[in-house]
């Protein structure tokens, strides 16, 4: 693994909330163009680690290098400008805005326009708005939303809202996409579609994807590498098959003792979730 090939290189990241150490000396590296997952029991610090990457939290210690540039403690909007996008565990759409507007908000950092141009309606401004609108429509099409552009985002069904969130993230033209439990609340066929979409994002658009996921079926089938967190620390890392056999992982999920049985594996983890 040469350093130039790394999109994320996080070293010794520590994030504390008062007396609680949510992320404890976490080391994590990720190569470009891959699909990685972070899994772990509830409260393991997965989302907190995510938030230190996307800038919502400032880590107390450690460095996070994105494409050779340290980004720890940077404001979230600056990190987004560097082509890092994310979705949220509990969907956070702008419910009072239409679907298209949500996606246009996602394109905020890519639109080069200012207040004066907006007030004067310069030709460049109008053209750019039209282009952005067209692009938003393409993105809607891409994630499988058609004809709902003028609906309020909050009026869409759950699966539709997840898609809008992904389209909104894509509008910021990400190189790295952070998805926080993207299939939570989906039925099996919906998560199947979602997985298909994630693969296309990587294969067709070349976007590196980092997932937090509880659905072991999704995790095991899509991830090229999995990191497991427990109590804020990384307890295991490897390809899916290794992780499924790892006794520490099984212990984290099922408790001490359960790891003893041979072949607990993926089936046991399936039960755990």
């Amino acid at each position, binding site marked *: 693994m040469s350093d130039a090939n790394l999109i994320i290189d996080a070293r010794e990241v520590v994030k504390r909330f008062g007396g609680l150490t949510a992320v404890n000396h976490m080391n994590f590296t990720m190569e470009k163009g891959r699909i990685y997952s972070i899994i772990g029991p*509830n409260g393991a610090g997965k*989302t907190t680690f995510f*938030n230190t990457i*996307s800038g*919502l939290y400032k880590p107390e210690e450690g460095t996070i290098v994105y494409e050779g540039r340290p980004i720890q403690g940077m*404001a979230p*909007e600056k990190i*987004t*400008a560097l082509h890092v996008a*994310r979705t*949220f*565990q*509990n969907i*956070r*759409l*702008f*419910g*009072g*805005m*239409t679907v*298209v*507007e949500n996606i*246009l*908000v*996602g*394109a*905020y*950092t890519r*639109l080069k*326009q200012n*207040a004066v*141009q*907006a*007030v004067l*309606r310069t030709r460049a*401004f109008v053209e750019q*708005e039209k282009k952005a*609108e067209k692009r938003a*429509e393409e993105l*809607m099409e891409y994630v*499988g*939303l*058609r*004809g*709902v*552009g*003028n609906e*309020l985002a909050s009026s*869409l*069904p*759950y*699966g*539709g809202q997840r*898609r809008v969130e992904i389209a*909104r993230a894509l509008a*910021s033209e990400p190189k790295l996409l952070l998805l926080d*439990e993207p299939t*939570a*609340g989906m039925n099996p066929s*919906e998560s199947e579609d979602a997985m298909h979409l994630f693969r296309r994002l990587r294969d067709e658009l070349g976007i590196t994807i980092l997932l937090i996921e509880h659905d072991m079926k999704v995790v095991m089938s899509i991830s090229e590498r999995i990191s497991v967190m427990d109590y804020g620390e990384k307890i295991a890392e490897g390809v899916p098959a290794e992780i499924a056999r790892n006794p520490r992982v099984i212990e984290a999920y099922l408790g001490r003792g359960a790891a003893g049985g041979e072949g607990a594996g993926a089936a046991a983890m399936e039960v755990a979730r």
Partner: protein
Amino acid sequence: MKTKLRERMRELAAFCNKGAVPYWLTGGLITLGFILVYISPRSIPAFLLFVGGASLSYFLDMKKPAKLAFAVLVAIVLVPVLGARNIFYLEVIFQIAVFSALALGLNIVVGFSGLLNFGYMAFYAVGAYLWAFFGSQQPFLLHEIPGTAPQGTPFFLAPDWFYLFIFLGIIVAAIVGLILGLPVLRVRGDYLAVITLAFGEIVRQLLNNLDKPLNLTNGPQGITPIQRPTLTPEVVAFFNRIFEPLVGRPVTPNQFYNILFYLIALFVVILVIVITFRLDDSKIGRAWTAIREDELAAGAMGIPANKLKLGAFAVGASFAGAMGVLFAASRTFVSPESFTFLASVNVLTMVILGGIGSISGVIVGAVVVTILNLQVLQSISLWLAALRQSDAFIPIINFHWKDLSNQLDPSKYQRLVFGIILVLMMIYRPAGILPAARRKRELKVHAKDPEVEVAEPASPAGDREGKNV
């Protein structure tokens, strides 16, 4: 019963929008209103009919040029003529214009960006006192006791600096808005409301007390006289040559000032409307709304929330600043009395009553509140006063009007009437008279994806109440 009524209303609306009906309807109402006001300049119902007819053109289904033509006819020709006949109406419409601009400015802060602001009048005061200070003798009275201007003190600036000061008012108020914005970045919601409330009071108290050690504001007495822009006799004569036959008598220069200020206010308000519309429909406006909806998600989408909040405060303040300069010149007098907390609440009422976040709604709010304030309640007061003077009485209960207590004067319980209206509105129409609606874009793909539509709205509550971010 209720549905039947609603059905009837829908039928009526459909009829009004059919073919040439809207043109005749608007034209007829405006003409009728105009004639009625022209004949009896003091009649309130006639004036309301005129205003109603004029505003109807906005809601009916008509071609854009026709709407524009109606608007221009009303604003440039009819209103000045009626105003010249009864200067009071010009005052009403002037105030509507001023408060529309204020409400639009506040709407950017409260409606678009969702930042509660209880001290908005402070920016208005900044604009007003800016011209009040430089457009009066005040700079030469810095060491005088308030109210003791020596005879023959000259004015500091020539009157026509007024026009430049409208722009200066914009800039200075925007800067003050930025200054207020700085603490605002640190707090949210209720705390923000308290800070802005305090800010409004601080500005008013400063105006009240800055007569010592240097007499900057003349204290509670206020500054007067303030200069108005010059008006040459030629302009008045020119106006009279065209409009004297229409008005029925020559217009004095003093009355013409009212028309002039009305036209300037109209110009500013149109500018404000255009700016607001265009900002709203750009990435800035979308970012404001996104911040209002979910600030954290907005940040994650790359929106620098602090910068945009400051921007909202500055833009909102600048509208008030421009109108403040206009206000000072048109009154030739300012005092801290005009910029109380209640005045700020008044503007906030317009925004909420009209439709928070809705541009046309906010203007309607300004119209309704101003007319209610200046006209309807006052005219009921006058009417009751007239009754009290007469010998009239209500026969059956044998109630003599002259026994009517002064306490029942409607102008005395204006705020009560307001309160009741607001309470009723918030219960039955919480989004305002004309609620904000998201703009529908013309999208190419109209066929609905069956997959999305069929997807059951399964939204397990547990999943959405995520404990983490």
